[in-house]
């Protein structure tokens, strides 16, 4: 039992893959190296899938990649709304990266999203993108003012959200993947044959994709919220209603 626990802890550790011997040694984490593998797989797959595409008489391979890209586009565009369309490709990239990273445990590697560094990086990039999108859409003034929407009293909460949102994004992804990883490791230690396969369907594949979906969904939602033009304030709305009532 003790050996099992120590083995589990060892598996949970984020190992250092190698050390670059400069600045007193930069330790490159295992997750970064696995991310390279994921990147290589994705890029090679993309090159292979998009190779020799034709406008007419597309092959089955091309139809598959077309329908996949169309699905990703529709999914991201639906969340982002009409004003955030230009961030669709970034969200698509994140979606397929987290998707593959979460299920790479099937290939015997540790999922990189099990490493807090990876989820922090993803979350920080998300919040930077969200705020940058807000500034781009509304200008610095409009972006700053958006913290006081809908009423001034929520301003501190809105400012806190800059930190809460990425934290929740990062911790949700990390916790879910780590949790499934621990359970899968335990099951594999107990019954190494057959049973892990069934549980892997849920913990690796289903949960992996769900977490990728949730991460992208929330990031997209926040971007959409940030780029959405400010609604007319309540006073104006009331005025309009009054005018309508008079006119009616």
């Amino acid at each position, binding site marked *: 039992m003790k050996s099992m626990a120590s083995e589990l802890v060892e598996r949970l550790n984020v190992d250092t893959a190698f050390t670059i011997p400069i600045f007193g040694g930069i330790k490159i984490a295992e997750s*970064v190296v696995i*991310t390279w593998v994921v990147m290589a797989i994705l890029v090679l797959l993309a090159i292979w899938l998009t190779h020799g595409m034709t406008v007419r008489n597309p092959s089955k391979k091309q139809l598959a*990649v*077309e329908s996949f890209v169309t699905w990703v586009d529709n999914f991201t565009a639906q969340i982002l709304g009409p004003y955030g369309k230009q961030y669709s490709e970034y969200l698509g990239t994140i979606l397929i990266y987290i998707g593959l990273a979460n299920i790479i445990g099937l290939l015997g590697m540790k999922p990189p999203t099990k490493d807090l*560094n990876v989820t*922090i990086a993803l979350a920080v990039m998300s919040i930077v993108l969200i705020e940058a999108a807000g500034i781009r859409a509304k200008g610095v003034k409009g972006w700053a003012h958006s913290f006081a929407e809908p009423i001034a009293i929520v301003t501190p909460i809105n400012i806190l959200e800059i930190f809460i949102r990425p934290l929740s994004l990062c911790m949700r992804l990390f916790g879910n993947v780590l949790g499934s990883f621990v359970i899968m490791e335990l099951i594999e230690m107990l019954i190494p044959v057959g049973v892990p396969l069934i549980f892997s369907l849920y913990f690796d594949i289903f949960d992996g994709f769900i977490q990728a979906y949730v991460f992208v969904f929330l990031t997209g939602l926040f971007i959409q919220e940030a780029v959405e033009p400010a609604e007319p304030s309540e006073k104006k709305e009331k005025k309009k209603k009054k005018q309508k009532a008079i006119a009616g």
Partner: protein
Amino acid sequence: MLRIDINILFMMINLLILYVLIRKFLFKPVHNILAKRDEEIKAKYADADRTKQDAQALKDQYENSVKELEASREEKIAAARKDADAEYDRIVADANGKSDAIVDEARKKAQAAADQEKHKAEEEISGMVKDAAAKIAEAQSDEKLYDDFLKQVSADPKQEG
């Protein structure tokens, strides 16, 4: 177990590189192809519309020409009918005239023949009357002769028995 260090930065760089690569190798080509196909389909639709319009124009033109032809045909037929009627009338009038003349001539000839016949008959009749008159005259002499004979017979009875 938890480890937060410089690898966050590496991960960010990784993700940015992945974003650029995926955009270049997956989204861009697929979007290009989809846009091209879209364009082609639109062009085809436009082409089809144009072809349809052309066909409609040709059809209209054809129908118009058919109508024109029909009209001119009717006109020609009417004119021809008129001509034919005139010709018919003329021919009939001509024939009527000719037949009247023929009938007149025939009547005249018949009249002349009848007159001739009449004349002949009159002549014959007058001849016959003359003959009859002569015969009557002759018969009167016979009667006298017969009477004379009778007178002779009665005057000579021996000869009778």
